């Protein structure tokens, strides 16, 4: 455990806090008699029922697969949509006259950021795709989450593009490049490098957001936990297990983003 927590992002002060929280939780468990033999055997019995018996852990594994599939799909859509939207908005601001496209992009971002993802998901499934029954519901969820994420990613990209010194664009243009090729070959590669960590954070947020997919009948990780609850009538263990799985994945991803950030900033040192 020590090695792992040392490499936990933001090691140092946060680490001590984590230990304190852990110690406090252990104390609470101790107080509530968790470490008595009877409680322990009861815990084991319930653990067996919830996860081991009839290979019930496979429900969580399948749920996790679905969660990751949806998150990955939605991220791809989100990045593509976000990139297009942000380039439109930046280009309009940068002197290209595309008011209609710009207005559309603005409206898109306003509407999708201004309404809850949950409501959007329900509308996609029950209103827009009401008659699409043979379509795997997961694809509807990917579309809903992806388009929603696109609106956020657009703002991330816009920030990234605007963080590049305007002099770069001026220099590229003065060398005879058109606006679009300066954008593509000069601005975007640099902007992308700046926003990659933020994109991964969006990916992590998306991973947690897909937990509402159960509302349209997808057995994602959260829903898999609820399905186990319904099987065993046990409330806490399946949920805590689901939380732990999310947390482990998020921590792994966060670590990966840290590494990626370091790797990306190599060239600038």
């Amino acid at each position, binding site marked *: 455990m020590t090695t792992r927590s040392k490499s936990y992002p933001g090691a140092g002060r946060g680490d001590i806090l984590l230990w304190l929280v852990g110690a406090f939780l252990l104390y609470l468990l101790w107080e509530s008699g968790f470490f008595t033999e009877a409680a322990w055997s009861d815990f084991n019995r319930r653990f067996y029922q919830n996860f081991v018996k009839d290979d019930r852990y496979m429900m969580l594994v399948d749920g996790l697969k679905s969660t990751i599939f949806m998150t990955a799909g939605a991220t791809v859509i989100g990045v593509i949509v976000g990139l297009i939207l942000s380039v439109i908005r930046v280009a309009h601001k940068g002197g290209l006259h595309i008011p209609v496209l710009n207005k559309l992009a603005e409206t898109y971002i306003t509407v999708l950021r201004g309404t809850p993802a949950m409501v959007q998901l329900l509308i996609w499934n029950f209103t827009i795709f009401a008659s699409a029954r043979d379509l795997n519901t997961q694809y509807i969820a990917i579309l809903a989450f992806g388009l929603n994420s696109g609106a956020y990613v657009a703002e991330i990209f816009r920030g990234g593009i605007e963080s590049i010194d305007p002099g770069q664009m001026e220099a590229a243009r003065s060398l005879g490049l058109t606006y679009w090729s300066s954008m593509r070959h000069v601005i975007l590669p640099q902007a992308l490098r700046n926003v990659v960590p933020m994109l991964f954070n969006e990916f992590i947020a998306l991973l947690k957001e897909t937990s509402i997919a159960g509302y349209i009948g997808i057995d994602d990780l959260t829903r898999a936990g609820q*399905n186990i609850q319904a099987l065993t009538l046990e*409330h806490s263990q399946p949920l805590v297990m689901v939380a732990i799985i999310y947390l482990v994945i998020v921590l792994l991803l966060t670590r990966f983003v840290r590494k990626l950030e370091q790797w990306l900033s190599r060239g600038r040192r």
Partner: protein
Amino acid sequence: MRKVFALMLVLTLCSCAFADGEKLKSPSQLKTERLAAQRGTVGQFIAEDLLGDKKAELLTTYEKYVDAVAALRQEKIRAVIMDEMPAKRFVNEIDGLAIMDEALTEESYAIGFKKGNAELVGQVNKILAEMKADGTLDAILKKYIDGDYSSIKPEDIDFNKGAEGGKLYVGTEAGFAPYELKVGSGFIGIDVEMCANIAKKLGKELVIINMNFDALPTAVSTGKVDMICAGITVTDERKENMDFSDNYVTGAKQVALVRADDYEK
């Protein structure tokens, strides 16, 4: 700030009064108690009727039964209004729960359809009548209600895969044993087996769509599913928004699930 403190004081006093109150004896006492129900179920409607004007304050609706029962065990509420069969399962599996002897109502279950889908309603009614006549339905009910259904596997149920007549989409909420339950990656239960029979006789493949109970009416009225079968009680209010088949279960009781130590027979 003072208001917040006053509110907290009132809440503390309330909870003290709540803890010291006398034990429950009959459902009539529930009219002034904190109740819970699964959202969109008849249990919710009954609780609303019981509480009247106080429902906004005293009724909590949960998405799943397990949530409501957890709240009951944590003494956040005093009773869960729910169907008898799942309530019995909770009593059997979890120590310290009891069902009030006096049932609140008796209901019938039927399959729900999109309003105006007379063709499918007619076909299903005909099949239900056949299943009642030849004992298939009774056999299914007996298998789950009297027997131990924990050994039944989803693979044992014939979903008529690859049928030429297309697919029959059925919406359900698979947290309502013994009527429907998700096991592994498949489903078992009375409703599931009954729908499998119906699908077979229609020459279709059965596809079960598992969603939240309160999403079922939307799913059937928007055409997401052909029918919904989830131990759905026929009520006049629901009849306004969807069509029902003939009843396949009658005398299904709505009961109050309470803590055993809070109940005096």
